[in-house]
């Protein structure tokens, strides 16, 4: 057994390939080249095939596949199934130490990880029992491990180490079936079970292993070392500092584009990422943004895929009685409806009436779009037949695999490369879903009868644990690699990003079951559990490897600040290197659109001006006031009349609705004086029904406030009703001139026996806001109402009062009448009505002339304006004291 050692770049692979080629040329196919990963397998196979060799692909294989080909009997347990088995075992064993955490997914996952760790160093539960270190959770862990081992054996499943042992036994018994030469390349660490497997191979074939260095374990099983000197030249290196990770990713993109422009194919460049959570998403976005084709050697999580979310969401909705919000949330993920207008309409229809549940009521909401949505609803309805069933796990798996029909079958477009990958991921997700269902079935006893709920719980765990495996075989792409994956690669240009503290080297945390000390003792007993020191060595090796992957140029980089704006500490690995340093340059893609010419902020087109004229032939005082507050507000609210998305249930009892209820109650009560509470209750309940307002604490709070305010008004009002005849909710219109009609509705018109009258307007607002109406120059309601009283109702207007009803009753108004009133009023301003009439006409003239600019008279009111997001006014700062919020 030969051990070929040498530093990175010393050409170990080249030596192996040389021998491999020689054998092929000699027609000798009794050879195997074993490597750690599938990517490397394909890479080497392709390389030799392109050199003109024709050979069976299996001559180059991963060690795992090789082992598998010798295994007789047990199947390898997948991670997800192991998780489910561990979960059941932990519950069954019911150790008190684990009582408070046994239901937590992270706990089960970390148990499963630790079991895997033991298993991969060749320590099954029996062996652990014999050398269990004294550590508080040791016995409880062991109990679960033993249960897991028993369960695996019962089901004919094995962990990887079990397969190694099984294969080794078979090889010892029957030999290697004629294989004479075996090379292993690309390995950086081998566990004890792997080594003993190699020893077995070594007894039946000529074995060569490439490795970083000789060690005692290798020597012990009989490897002889042959050392190679370092051959490859060191590439140029430099360090780039960017202000943030966004700029760092953009800088790398910029440099890739520079290289590409200079003629370097994308496939000759790679980005090595150590911290995938931070960097993979941002590189996906950034490289796509700059149009750089890239292949990511990272598997996304299966359950995050929208298709899986759609299918899972549907089953969850089914099990949850078709809660409308949840069902809608799932249906909106159905890709065939991603841009369907029917679905958009249905979406809003559903949202207008949530909370609700049940499929028939939901279906009824599809209205005019039922033709489009019917097939979907029929499929959903068909699922209901599953609810009462009790089936075997395999049967559930088969059944759930039919869910893909929910996606419909409309033609798939021919897409560009990027979108094609999205389509590919869709089909991959569907296939992975099916596999996941089979895996979930595997975790149960195959004859057990289960309900959908039971099976689905396991299925969801599998979906959560499994990755989405997606093939991307494009040749000319930038490779985005993890640091371990990158170990197998050599390319001209390499970027190593994220060189900051705790990212590279990554921070190592102790295992909760077997901390450092326990590991040290295990090592003393011969169980080679990795320790912190090993972890550190491994990180260092990953870094050394990352910066030696390039033949021409390695660019290391780091962001100077994190997302909170705190300075990052550059990685300690950078301290040992003397690197030329460069700053990143801000970069972005050329805009695809040229900026348009500045647009006029008024309406000029004659046809549109005509529309304005038509729309302003009849105007209400509130529309006029809206214009006076802000021309744009008027434009957006009254002319464009934009419809927003439906409000959330808890927002439906908004100010407007509350005001309407209060107005309606008062209108009735003022005339009939019937008991206020039941009257209010009737109106309130009607409003809840009409607006689909759910009952609950919030509704109750507002109900209470409204009722209190009404009662306060009823009990404290000193208005001399007896002196007047009241007309309630009186609509009116009157012509101010030939072209303008004013229309409105008076809450109350109180006419005295002498023909003098008061206009009363209820405001469901606080005392302050009500009083402010007296001094606000931009209001026209009062004079216009008074004019209406005069012109339409032919009475002599003596005054007008606003009654503020919220949080304390307030009368604010004008009183020009001779009679003493219990409430003070301001005298009518000089020439009020005439001036207001003229002003109204001027205002309307402005509207008709197309004035729509954003010019709020009072920016405080912008807070209540529905157009505040549209108008882009800078009146949003409603700051607050710092102590309450400062962090």
């Amino acid at each position: 057994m030969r051990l070929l050692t040498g530093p990175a770049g010393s050409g170990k692979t080249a030596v192996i390939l040389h021998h491999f080629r020689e054998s092929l040329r000699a027609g000798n196919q009794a050879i195997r080249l074993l490597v750690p990963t599938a990517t490397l397998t394909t890479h080497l196979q392709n390389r030799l095939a392109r050199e003109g060799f024709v050979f069976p692909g299996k001559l180059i294989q991963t060690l795992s596949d090789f082992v598998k080909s010798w295994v007789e009997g047990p199947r390898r347990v997948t991670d997800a199934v192991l998780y489910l088995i561990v979960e059941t075992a932990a519950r069954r064993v019911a150790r008190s130490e684990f009582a408070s955490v046994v239901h937590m997914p992270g706990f089960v996952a970390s148990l499963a990880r630790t079991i895997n760790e033991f298993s991969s160093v060749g320590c099954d539960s029996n062996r652990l029992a014999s050398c269990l270190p004294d550590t508080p959770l040791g016995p409880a862990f062991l109990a679960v491990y033993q249960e897991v081992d028993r369960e695996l054996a019962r089901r004919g499943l094995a962990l990887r180490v079990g397969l190694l042992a099984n294969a080794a036994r078979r090889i010892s018994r029957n030999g290697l079936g004629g294989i004479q030469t075996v090379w292993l390349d690309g390995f950086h660490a081998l566990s004890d079970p792997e080594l003993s497997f190699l020893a077995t191979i070594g007894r039946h074939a000529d074995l060569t292993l490439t490795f970083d260095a000789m060690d005692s374990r290798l020597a012990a099983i009989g490897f002889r070392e042959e050392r190679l000197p370092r051959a490859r030249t060191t590439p140029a290196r430099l360090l780039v500092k960017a202000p943030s990770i966004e700029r760092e990713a953009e800088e790398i993109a910029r440099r890739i584009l520079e290289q590409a422009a200079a003629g370097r194919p994308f496939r000759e460049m790679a980005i090595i990422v150590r911290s995938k959570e931070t960097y993979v998403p941002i590189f996906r976005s950034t490289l796509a943004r700059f149009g750089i084709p890239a292949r990511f050697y990272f598997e996304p999580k299966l359950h995050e895929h929208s298709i899986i979310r759609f299918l899972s969401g549907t089953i969850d909705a089914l099990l949850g009685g078709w809660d409308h919000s949840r069902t809608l949330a799932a249906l909106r993920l159905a890709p065939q409806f991603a841009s369907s207008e029917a679905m958009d309409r249905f979406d809003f229809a559903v949202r207008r009436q949530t909370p609700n549940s049940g499929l028939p009521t939901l279906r009824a909401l599809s209205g005019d779009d039922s033709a489009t949505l019917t097939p979907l609803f029929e499929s959903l309805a068909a699922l209901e037949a599953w609810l009462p069933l009790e089936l075997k796990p395999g049967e559930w798996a088969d059944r759930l695999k039919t869910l893909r029909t929910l996606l419909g079958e409309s033609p798939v477009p021919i897409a560009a490369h990027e979108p094609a990958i999205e389509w590919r991921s869709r089909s991959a997700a569907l296939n992975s879903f099916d596999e996941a269902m089979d895996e979930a079935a595997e975790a149960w006893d195959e004859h057990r009868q289960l309900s959908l709920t039971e099976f689905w719980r396991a299925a969801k765990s599998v979906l959560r644990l499994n990755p989405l495996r997606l093939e991307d075989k494009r040749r000319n792409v930038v490779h985005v690699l993890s640091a371990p994956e990158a170990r197998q690669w050599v390319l001209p240009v390499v970027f190593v990003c994220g060189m900051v503290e705790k990212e590279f080297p990554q921070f190592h945390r102790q295992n909760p079951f077997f901390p450092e000390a326990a590991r040290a003792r295990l090592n003393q007993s011969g169980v080679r559990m990795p320790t912190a020191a090993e972890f550190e060595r491994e990180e260092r090796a990953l870094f050394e490897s990352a910066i030696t992957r390039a033949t021409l140029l390695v660019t290391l980089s780091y962001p100077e600040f994190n997302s909170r704006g705190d300075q990052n500490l550059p990685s300690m690995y950078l301290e040992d290197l003397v690197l030329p340093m460069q700053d990143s340059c801000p970069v972005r893609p050329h805009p695809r659109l040229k900026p348009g010419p500045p647009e006029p902020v008024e309406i000029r087109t004659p046809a549109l001006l005509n529309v304005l004229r038509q729309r302003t032939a009849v105007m209400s005082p509130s529309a006029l006031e809206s214009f006076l507050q802000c021309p744009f507000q008027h434009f957006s609210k009254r002319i464009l009349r934009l419809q927003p998305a439906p409000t959330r249930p808890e927002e439906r009892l908004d100010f407007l609705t509350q005001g309407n209820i209060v107005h309606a109650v008062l209108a009735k009560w003022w005339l009939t004086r019937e008991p206020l509470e039941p009257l209010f209750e009737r109106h309130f309940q009607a409003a809840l029904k009409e607006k689909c307002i759910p009952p609950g604490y919030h509704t109750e709070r507002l109900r209470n406030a409204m009722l209190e305010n009404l009662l306060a008004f009823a009990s404290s009002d000193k208005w001399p009703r007896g002196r007047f005849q009241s007309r309630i909710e009186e609509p009116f219109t009157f012509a101010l001139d030939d072209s303008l009609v004013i229309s409105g509705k008076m809450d109350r018109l109180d006419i005295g026996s002498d023909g003098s009258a008061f206009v009363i307007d209820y405001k469901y607002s606080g005392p302050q806001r009500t009083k402010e109406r007296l001094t606000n120059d931009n209001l026209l309601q009062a004079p216009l109402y008074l004019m209406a009283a005069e012109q339409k109702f032919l009475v002599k207007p003596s005054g007008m009062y606003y009654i503020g009803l919220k949080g304390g009753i307030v009368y604010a108004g004008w009183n020009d009448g001779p009679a003493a009133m219990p409430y003070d009023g301001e005298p009518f301003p000089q020439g009020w009505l005439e001036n207001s009439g003229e002003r109204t006409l001027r205002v309307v003239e402005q509207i008709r002339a197309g004035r729509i600019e954003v010019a709020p008279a009072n920016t405080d009111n912008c807070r209540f304006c529905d157009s505040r997001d549209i108008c882009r006014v800078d009146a949003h700062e409603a700051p607050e004291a710092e102590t309450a919020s400062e962090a």
Partner: protein
Amino acid sequence: MKEVRFTAAQLEAIDISQRHLDACVVAGPGSGKTTVLVEYFRSLVAEGVDPLRILAITFTEKAAGNMRKKLAEAFHDDPRVRARLERAWVSTVHGFCARILKENAVFAGVDPDFYVADERESWRLQLDSMSEAMEEVFREDPVRVRALIRALSSPDFESDILSAYDAMRGAGISVAQLAQFPAPPGVTIAEIEQTLAAIRAEKLIGWNPAQKDQLECALEGAERIVNANTPRGALQAIEEFSCNLSKCKRGNPAYTLLKHLKDEQIPKFLYAAITACYTSERELLLDILQRFDRIYRHRKSLAGALDFADLEEFTVRLLESHAETRARLQAQFDHILMDEFQDTNGQQSKLLRLVRPPDRFYAVGDINQSIFGFRHAEPRGFQEYRDEVHHGGKRLVELIDNFRSRPEILSAVETITADAPGIEPRSLVAGRAFDQPRPVCVELMAVSGEESPEARWVARRILELLDAEPHLQFKDIALLVRNTEVLTEFTSAFEQAGIPYLVNRGRGFHDSREVNDLTHLLRVIANPRDEVSLAVVLRSPLVGVSDETLLEMKLQGGNLSAALIPAEQSEALSPNPQPPTPNPRLSPRIAFFAARLVEWRARRESVSFDRLLLSAIDDCGYPESPNLDKFLAQARDAASRLSLDEFVEELELVRASNPREPDAPPEDSANAVKIMTVHSAKGLEFPVVFLSALHKGIDTKLPVVAFSRHFGLGARWRNPARREDKNDLFQHAIHEERKLREAEESSRLLYVAMTRAEELLVLSYSVSERKPSNWAGVVASSLQIDLANPRDEVVTLTAPDGKPWKLRLLVAGDPGPLPVLSRPLPNPAPALEFVSSPAITGQSDTNATVTQLRAFVNCPREYYLRHYLGFEGRIPRPDSLVPGTGREARTLSADELGNQVHLLLEGNTLPDAHPDALRMEGIFRQSALGRRVTRATRVEREFEFLVAIEELVVSGQVDLWFEEGGEIVIVDYKTDDVTAVEAHRRAREYELQLRIYALAVEQVAGRAPTSAWLHFLRPNTLVRVDLTPTLLDSPEQVVREFHEAQSSMNFPLNENERCRRCPFVNGLCPATLAGISKAPEKTI
């Protein structure tokens, strides 16, 4: 580390020979405490202490980072220590707790894979849990809830409870403990009775009858209070109680007693009466908190999340309940270093007590700089520790030298804060040497007038300073304010004056324009029927539509979105085979947007949301900003958790519930004036500091429900006798406590603010009619200078220690036109580079199988769907499976049958082989070819190969080839269900496959195969394949076309009879059977 010269006090502080004693270092502002702390750590390590045996806790992440950085530098040359520093325990309290919990998750009862929910996420979870709790209790007992609502109705009720909850947790008090707080003492009935009795006992000498009547009336009123049967009655009696003291005889004991009764006892008794009146509501309040707590904890546990308070609470609980872990942890650290000790809260102090063994603690702090009371810091803890150290004869060191500010600034600080509450008198000794003298280092501007003259004065002074002192740059200047409400005044004055500025930690993230635009864009992508959102987007620079156009679009009728994408188009279901053609009446710019919208909508769930946004941003060159980056990061992150609709909803909820999200931190490098609150300036220093809007205080009103660790939970209730709210005893006590704390903290905040300045401190405020209040009041009264008349002069003042210092005093109105800076702005931002997308070539695959190539040749579209994209063909429908039909009942599929035949012919024995499979095996074995095999000299079955054709590596498997009689023969078995006639036609589909086999076999065998055969086993038909293809259908040509199709993504349909067998017809493929003529199949 560069050589630092330490003062004697500093040397004492870093003296490690006393390391076995608890130490307290009182470090004034600018006294170099970080340096001392780092040096102490460094010396310990240099002395041989393992860095992993030191625990250093800082207040902020930034400070921890800074410390780690300095330590890394210090041990740069010692790789062993340097490597250990990576794992050293230098972090914030939260960082420390998170690490402890991860490593002891099982004992701590937390999910080992927990993540820490950020403020935003926990706030959302809290709101949801709160409303669930409220709904739950309302369902169970609506009557009680109604009573509570009547008693305590505030729109902020829930958020107030949540902040009380937050305070509780900071103090380390559990919800269960809340009920145990006794009511703070108030005035009792007995006390009032006593007073009444005492008054009654008085001889009313000199009281006239009217006065006596007045007294009697008051006494009767008080007796009604005393005799009330219920708290409600008492409240009513209090309301009715009246006593006009001015109508009573003064200057006698009865008067004094009456006054005490009226002014002290009865008002205070009100708190007690309110408390008694609302006992049951208070219980409900506690019940609600308990439910909320339970629900919130449950939700976090489901999500595997811990919030910041959990980190502390769970660590404390772990250490309290688990003696072994506690002992282990205590043994783990030889030294515990703590920075900013005055800012720790109750829970953190508890934690520290659990972690620190005796005489291992080294705390640094300064009471005068304790400004985080609102975050529940308890500076008293530091005081107590300091006293303990002092009295216990341990190590107490005071660092009073200030290495930051000019002496005059320190004198000004001392003068202004001399008698301020909350400030411990401690002198500030100037220790920094300045190269140049500076005539005046402190200025005060008291400005009156309309339209923010103060802000314009500040702008003017900045420009004057920069003009007069060329070494100064904008970035040397900071503007500090206490209340962010005034910020806009300053930013607009700066904008007018052309002064670049950066606002640090504004809270307008959600209201910023970029976030507004992009949020609405996401809403439009989610559902364009939301016309408001669509209008926002259309008017924004993302599209740039004029209002006229908007109106035109709206006038087209129906929903605004219909003007973009005519209904029939958007209805074409996605995947939409035709590129969408937007409404032809649209301008090119809008049409472009409409087309993009269709595209984004189709991809809304398949790419992360930031990518959708980025493509919109890059379409129009939307300006970059830190908030934009922050929003994109949120969008990127959300895509892995949420669907677009869910994200849109989350944004809406966040915006509605917690709009005060901080702005992204500005990029620091710019040469700009920094604007920030005093709290965020803590720990920073600037050459020039403007401390402005001194007149502006903050809102200190207590919420309706509040918590204090001394009194528990208090509330303000509706006084049933009056439409007015009143504190209960708890709330009253909290109110008093809070008042005191605010006063003290206000002084300290002022102290911290002023001590940020190195060279120049400019104080400014706006003068109004009223007496100066807030800090302006403190400054004006402590300096005792005449601010009545306009002036601009330098006055000399005296500090408490007798040192004179100069103040430039400016009392002025409008600053007039602003000066123009005569020198250019240094270091402009680096220029933005625009790049174009690269030309993309070579996007074809590296590998293919023979089957794939064959599929491609027969129909490129089928290849695309099945192999390139990976779709399966047939899908059983959910209703096609009836219960009881398990997998056992399924029949053998064609593929499975084919497999069996191949296995049998390979020589395997299959016990369960299908009779059809066995029959077909027999057919081949008895055929002429089958018999030749038995005579062959070389036989290869299931021969696997890889062969490169035009750089494409093709893999395949030859069923059989053999050498016999000098000939090389290739055989491929087919189990297709065809007739003999059809077999000949079908054979054409397999020609390419056999030609590639021939290529491979030739390479291996060293010579070309003689013949190649397809054996259709079902009809037992043998078809010979011509191995000499024309140039057009040679494998090389096919591979070239294959490359080309993949590179250009061109996969046309090949509609013909074969479609009838294709699983994609009428489905994923646009071809329909209706369109297929009876024309014979052709092979391309």
